[in-house]
Structures are given as structure tokens and as C-alpha cells.
């Protein structure tokens, strides 16, 4: 047992290493084609497989009111194949799709013409002059019938199936506020399959099974709404933001019915162009051998007019806002949110450190104050925790007993004030820096997670921002965090949410 002799001593004298500049060693190689397509590669010689991703700089930020969730829906539609993938008889199928588009154009025309009859006028969604018109019913029936015809002429899963057949895994996709991406992990000697399918998807997608697929989104939305927290969080999001689309969820119930092929096609044709696209590969490939391969499938695409950038901008913070939420299923809590800058702003990396350090600190303060509860600090809005535009830091204190809510709020606000005046303990900040560094390594060890981070930073700002972002977190001091809190944690930048059981007094 001699080997264990010093274990207790080790535990006691163990200390956190001091802050030091870390080498994150991200050997990202870049090639930009004449048409604007960006290729990023991390070479890992000898690896049998390669993680492959294609990022498009578009997402929920680019949607129109009434069509929320349309970007996410477009992602679903882009799994439905192309003329060469998924059709049993493209000539016949093409003709049916043309008829569907014509019928939908006529439907849109009729919906616009009847707008004053169909307009929802009730707060409780309870009054329209009429629900529909004979022409609308006729056109919808026609589209249903054409959908069935088209379905007979196509097969399902036309893209994934080939990925799977050739050893592809992680055949997923994601759409958030600022990006859409498609993923694949496949044997390295079959990487051309990814290029062939993605080039086809980018230019020739056929929106098959449009109306059935929209119901899949409804199911996903119902899944969200089954969680007691969803509607409260959405209310908090909209309390924080007034103009920015960051705060809007992936579709309200009315939106799903309003998606049109025409609108989806417009998003598709505007944003899925080479100069708005980044390809990322990590694994047993080299930049040198990928350049001609990518060129073979994407090189012929012409640079398109630069897609319109998102221009929503929050007005300057001007007043504290408050939400009182009554619920018997949601745990009682007080939550304070502040708007924070987006990735690319020099202050943004510090918020990662602040969130971790303040959470640990606040937990002990709350306990000392006699409030039974738990602290969670995050930067999540809808499903995403980092943005290239301003979003929010969310400081949540869940209490075991709703009668302690006032005390919890007083304690939280007092500690937030103190945060801008007194630095947090230096050893706590050092510990947090180490934690964030370790968490990053846990991300980077997984090529799929690493490729995502590279792509995400590219759409938020630039992939070149990633390494300085990590280094800035490593250099953060307790005094930096104090200054940060003093600058952002001010009353007029604050939104407060309080959750109490129905009937409880505050």
C-alpha cells in the first residue's frame, strides 16, 4: 500500500496553476476559391475517417415575421433529394412539381386577395370573418392530390441512404439563428461522396413531401412546448430583445401553416451560393488533395450577388424590464438577464469566465444568506449559446420555497451590484480558467465538435477569431471581470423574470 501513502497530502496541497497563455494549436488550413467558397482543413495524417461539414451563413435571423422557423424547415426540405437523387422518373415528377408550384401560386394569390376576410382579429385567435374560401379549399385539395402523385414518383431518404451505404455516420443537420449546416463522418477514401451529394443539395434540391414535412416541425414544436420551461423562456427572450431576431423561437403555431414553397425557394436561392458557404474537413485528408476535389464539384458554381446581411439592431438599453410568470409546474425562480455583446467583440470571451466564476460564487452567497436554491448562469437564447450579434447572459436562481423569492431577488441583485465593485477571488477565477480550458480540450478532442466550433465562429465572425477568443479567456483576471460587470450589469440593461405559483404573493 506504499503507493497510496501520500494521497491525503496530495489532496490537501493540491492547488490551481496560475494563469498562463495557452497554445491551443489549431492548425487550420484555408483555401478560398474564386467563386468565394471557403475550404478549411485540419489534417490528421493516418486517420481512417474524415469529419465533413458544410456551413451556410443563414438561419432564423433571415426569416420574415409570420414565417418563423422557415429556415429550419428549409433544412428539412433539403434532405428530400434532387433530380438525380430520389426520383423514380424525373421527367414525370418534374411536371407534377411544376403543377404544385402553379397551384401554390394561385393559392397565395387567393390568400392575399381574401386577406381582410381571413385576417385573424381576435386576441385569443377566436375571430375571422371567414375561415376559408371555396377557391382556397379547391386549391388545397388540388395540392394534396398532386402531392400524392409526386410521392408515387419519388423515394424517401435519397441522400442519407447513400451516405449510410458507404459507411457515413452522423448524417445530421442543424439550423440555428445564424447558420445551417450538414454533417457527415465517413471513410477518408470516400470523401468525394460528400462533395457530390452536397454540391447537388446546394444547387438542385427538390422540395418533396412539403406538406407532410411541415407536420414534422409541428411535432418538434409540440415537443418543445411539452417542457414546462419553454414558454417562460420564450417570454423572457422577448422581454430582453425588441428588434433582434435572435430572440424569436423556431416558429409559433400559426407560422407552420404559412410556409410556402415560394418563400422557401427564395431563401434557398438567395443564401445557398458559393460565396456564402464554408466546407470543413478534419481527418485523414490534406488541403492539397482536397483543393482539386472540391473544385471538381463546386468550382463551376458562379459567385452570386452577396446575400443581404442581417440588419436587425437592438435600440440602446433604456429601462429595466420585468416579467411576472405564474406557473404551478415550473420551479419558482428569479432570473436576471443582461444584454451582452456578440462574438467578435473583445468583451465577449470574458463573459464565459464571468458566468462560471459568478455561478460558483453566487451559490455560496445564496447559501450563506439562508436561501435554499440552485444557481445556473448561461448565455443560451432559444437553443444557442453564442452569437455574432448581441444576446444575453441569464443569471437564474431557482428556489426551493416560493416564499423565499423576495429574499432571493434581493440577494441576487445585491451581489450583482457588488460584482461591479469588488473583484471575485483570484483563485476562483484561476480555477474557472482551467475549467474552461479543459472543457475546450474536451471539445477539440472530438473532430465533429471541433469542426462545428470552427464553422460556427466562421458564420458569427471569422474562424480566425476562435483561437484569440480562447486565449482571451485564459488571460482574464478578476479585475477584468469586475470592470465587465460594472459596464454591462446596469439597471437599464436589465430584464428580470420572476416565476411564482399561481396565487402566491410577492
Amino acid at each position, binding site marked *: 500500500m506504499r*503507493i*497510496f501513502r501520500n*494521497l*491525503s497530502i496530495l*489532496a490537501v496541497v*493540491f*492547488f490551481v*496553476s496560475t494563469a498562463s497563455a495557452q497554445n491551443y494549436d489549431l492548425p487550420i488550413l484555408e483555401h478560398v476559391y474564386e467563386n468565394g467558397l471557403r475550404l478549411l482543413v485540419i489534417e*490528421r495524417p493516418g486517420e*481512417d*475517417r474524415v469529419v465533413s461539414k458544410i456551413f451556410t451563413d443563414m438561419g432564423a435571423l433571415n426569416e420574415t415575421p409570420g414565417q418563423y422557423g422557415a429556415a429550419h424547415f428549409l433544412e428539412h426540405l433539403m434532405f428530400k433529394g434532387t433530380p*438525380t*437523387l430520389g426520383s423514380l422518373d424525373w421527367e414525370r415528377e418534374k411536371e407534377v412539381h411544376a403543377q404544385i408550384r402553379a397551384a401554390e401560386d394561385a393559392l397565395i394569390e387567393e390568400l392575399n386577395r381574401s386577406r381582410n376576410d381571413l385576417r385573424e382579429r381576435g386576441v385569443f385567435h377566436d375571430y375571422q370573418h371567414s375561415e376559408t374560401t371555396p377557391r382556397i379549399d379547391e386549391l388545397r385539395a388540388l395540392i394534396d392530390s398532386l402531392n400524392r402523385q409526386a410521392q408515387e414518383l419519388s423515394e*424517401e*431518404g435519397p441522400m*442519407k*441512404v*447513400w451516405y*449510410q*451505404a*458507404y*459507411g*457515413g*455516420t452522423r448524417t445530421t443537420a442543424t439550423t440555428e439563428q445564424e447558420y445551417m449546416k450538414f454533417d457527415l*463522418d*465517413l*471513410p477518408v*477514401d*470516400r470523401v*468525394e*461522396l460528400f462533395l*457530390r*451529394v452536397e454540391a*447537388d443539395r446546394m444547387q438542385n434540391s427538390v422540395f418533396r*413531401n412539403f406538406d*407532410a*414535412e411541415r*407536420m*414534422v416541425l*409541428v*411535432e*418538434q414544436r*409540440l*415537443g418543445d*412546448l*411539452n417542457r*414546462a420551461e419553454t414558454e417562460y423562456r420564450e417570454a423572457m427572450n422577448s422581454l430582453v430583445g425588441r428588434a433582434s431576431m435572435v430572440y424569436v423561437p423556431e416558429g409559433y403555431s400559426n407560422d407552420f401553416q404559412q410556409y410556402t414553397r415560394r418563400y422557401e425557394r427564395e431563401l434557398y436561392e438567395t443564401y445557398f451560393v458559393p460565396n456564402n458557404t464554408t466546407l470543413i474537413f478534419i481527418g485523414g485528408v490534406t488541403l492539397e488533395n482536397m483543393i482539386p476535389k472540391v473544385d471538381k*464539384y463546386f468550382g*463551376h*458554381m*458562379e459567385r452570386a450577388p452577396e446575400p443581404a446581411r442581417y440588419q436587425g439592431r437592438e435600440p440602446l438599453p433604456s429601462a429595466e424590464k420585468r416579467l411576472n410568470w405564474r406557473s404551478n409546474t415550473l420551479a419558482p425562480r428569479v432570473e436576471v438577464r443582461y444584454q451582452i455583446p456578440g462574438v467578435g467583440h473583445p468583451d465577449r470571451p470574458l463573459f464565459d469566465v464571468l458566468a462560471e466564476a459568478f455561478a460558483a460564487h453566487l451559490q455560496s452567497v445564496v447559501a450563506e444568506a439562508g436561501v435554499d436554491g440552485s444557481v445556473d448562469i448561461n448565455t443560451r437564447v432559444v437553443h444557442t449559446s453564442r452569437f455574432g450579434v448581441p444576446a444575453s447572459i441569464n443569471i437564474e436562481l431557482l428556489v426551493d420555497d416560493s416564499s423565499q423569492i423576495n429574499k432571493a431577488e434581493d440577494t441576487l441583485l445585491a451581489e450583482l451590484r457588488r460584482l461591479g465593485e469588488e473583484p471575485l477571488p483570484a483563485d476562483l477565477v484561476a*480555477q474557472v480558467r*482551467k475549467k474552461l480550458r*479543459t*472543457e475546450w*480540450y*474536451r471539445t*477539440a*478532442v*472530438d473532430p465533429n465538435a471541433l469542426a462545428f466550433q470552427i464553422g460556427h465562429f466562421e458564420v458569427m465572425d471569422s474562424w480566425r477569431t476562435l483561437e484569440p477568443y480562447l486565449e482571451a479567456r485564459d488571460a482574464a483576471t478578476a479585475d477584468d471581470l469586475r470592470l465587465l460587470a460594472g459596464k454591462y450589469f446596469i439597471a437599464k440593461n436589465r430584464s428580470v423574470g420572476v416565476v411564482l405559483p399561481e396565487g402566491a404573493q410577492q
Partner: protein
Amino acid sequence: MRKLLLLAVLFATPSLAQVLAHPRDMGLPDSDYTRPDPVEYQLALENGLIAYVTEADQVPLVTMSAFIRAGRVSDEKQGAAESLQDALKNSGPSEMSGDDFKTSLKQMTAEFVVEMHEEWTEITLNVPAEDLDQALLIFVRLLRDPAISDANIERATGSVAPEANDLGGESGTALYEGSMNAAVDHFYEIIYKDHPYGRRPTTDEFNDLRVADVAEFHARYFVPGNMTIAVAGAIDVDEINGRLVDLFGDWAAADVPEVKQMPAITRSRAALHHFPSNKLQSWLVIGHDLPPAPLEEQAAFDVMDYIMGAYHMNTRMMRNTRYKYGYTNDASSFAEDRWYGPGGYTYRSYSRPEVIENIYENMMGELIRIRNEEVSDHEMFVAKGALADGDFQVRYLDGYALTRSLALERLRYGNHDRSASYVQRIRGVTKEDVLNAARKYLRPDSLQVILLGEEAFELE
């Protein structure tokens, strides 16, 4: 003139100028992948302990895992396994206080997981490479000599006793989050009703339990020949092998406990079990037990399951619920085997209540069809490629996945024969094999149907 027209078309729509070969005509190379040779990673100690070690230095992290053939059904004295799990998770090695143990984990920024399954336990510690010495010492000490006290028994009582896990009964409501988990829990409660896998210690049994019982359970099962180790990360393999010899070498060999073979399940007739819920969706679980498949049938079962519903997007189940009709976001199968007894084979979906019956009918239609008709050549081609060149390769994707897969295989089967022959066995599966697997492992007359949500249909 025709040439001019063609040129005009090419210039007008440049994307159409590209002729894309169909994937099957791209000349993609056949796979020449071979599974890494276990011998290259293996360290066998004289006391019977076997470790798999490899360097993976992309980031300065190290992961170490221990796999022990001891789980919830292994204990003679009920509650001993659960109490030991608590000790491993919360108390740490006996020479440290629980607080020091937790402080050390926190200061190392460690990820520490203890998972106890029915027949085996996994302990994993992931730390920065700079903390390797400290972590390795704690890890080994924890395995060899965990601190066990009454507090562990008390905590285990609170988390395991039946009253803490009340699902609401057949007439109760399931209001809590994770309704699919609730439906699956109901399924297992039903199929394991009188089976050791369904047995949970009672409060009285915990009250009868003593620290000595838990220590005895540990002493019996946590022996070198009854566990395997995996270490991967930014390490020097020779150095780690030396450390493992130092740290484990003086652990005396002990008798390896005999494997407890679990009895088969007595199947019930097909039945519907309805559990009300007031959510916006309903959840459906259809299934029965899954007897252990002999080696010669495993590959055919995997192919059949892949075609039907194994958790991916291009299955028969997904096509006939989600894609064609938009009924649901997911309809998948879950083959959850056990090491030494019957597991569960379920098909799961969820939807708005008004279409849950359609989902049930379509899923049942597929369950019957796969037993009556041969699958297509195309389905076989896709499933074999996906299993042999996709899922199988991913098991050995990186250093940790590799050592973990090898360590688990060795512990469960005592050798690496299954993984050595897996690709060949998958390639050799015929359509007839798939039909036979479906007829043997999918039994409509025994399906238990769990409906969590609004009442929607009756069994025919």
C-alpha cells in the same frame, strides 16, 4: 444550330453544366479497413487484470476507465450494489475524506462518471494531462479500496426504494419531463415483473444492510480478473504501462466470481397498457423481451434491425410514419441486450394524440411485413455498408473509443473473436437470414404496447 442551343443553355444555367454521377456509379473504393489489433494495445498483469492503453495526443487530456463485471443483479444481499455505486460516486478512496475527494475532482476539472448497469459497472475519469499522476492514484485507490459507510446505504435507500420511483401505476398520470423515458420504464416494469432484472431493493432490505455487506460485495467482485482497464490520451504508453504495473501489480489475484446466468422471460400474450398523461403529445412503446442472440445469428439480427428501425433516419419505420405522412418526428427501434439474460427489444414513437393510432397501425404493419417478405437487395446493400463500414469503424474511431471497445469486449466475452469476425459476418448475411431473424426475434403475439397519453385505440 443544336450545338449553339446547347451552349446557350450551358451559359444560362451554369449549375446544370455539371453532370453528377450517381453515387453507385462514382467508383467509390471498397473498404480496406481492418480493426486495430488488440494485442498492440494490451497489457496483461499476472494477477489477471487486463488493460488497453494508447496514446492520443491531439489535446492534453487523459481518460481512464475501469469496467467491472458486477452490477445491480450481482449482489447476494439486496442493496449492496446500489450502496457501493454511491460510495464509488460520492465517497472516494478510503484514505481521503469525501470532501477532499470532491475537492480534488473539482480542482482537476475532472469529468467523473460511475454507471452501474444490471451486470457491469463503468467508472471513468477524464482529466487534464497535467493532473495525470494525481488522477491515476485516486482512480486506482478508488477501485481497490473505496470508502464505504452508512451514509452510502442511506443515500442509496433514498434513490432506489420503490416509493422514490413511483411511475404512477396504470391509472396514474405521468406529468414529469421525459415522457418517453416514463413509457420505457413502464415497459420494463411489465416485462421484468417477476424477473431478477426487475427486482429493486426495498426500504426494509436497505434497513437490513450493513457496511460490511457492501464491503464484502466489493471484495468479491472488484478483483483483478473480473475487470478491465482502458487508458487513452496524451500519455507515454510505456510509462503508463509501468505505472499500471506499479499500481495494480501487488493486488493479489482472487477467484473470479461465476457469472450469474439470468432466467428467460415467460412471455405474456400481446396487451395494451394505457397510462394517462396531460401533455400535448402521446408516447408509444411496442416491444417484448430480447433473448440473447447466439454469435451465428447476431449479424442477421443487426441487419434486420438496421432496416427496420435502428436509430437512424432511413428506416422502414421512419419512412412509414414520418416521411410519408408527417405523423411524428421519430419512430425507431432499440435493441437493448443484457450480458447474461433477456434484454428488451422496443419500437418507440410519439406524436400529437390524434395520429398516434395511425402510427401504431403503420408500425405494426411493418413489424408484420418484415416477418412475411424478404427485404430488398437495396436495403441489404445499405444496411451492410452502414454496419460494416460505418457503425463498426466508429467503435474504434479514436484512442478512447478504441480502448473502451476492446476493454468491454474482453470483459464480456473473454476474447476478441466477435469483433475480429464482425465485418465478415455482416457481409455474409443473406435475405433469408434476415427473414429468419425477423421471425425469431419479432413476435407480434407477445408484443406489449405502452401508450402514454390520451386513450386512442384498442388492440385488434
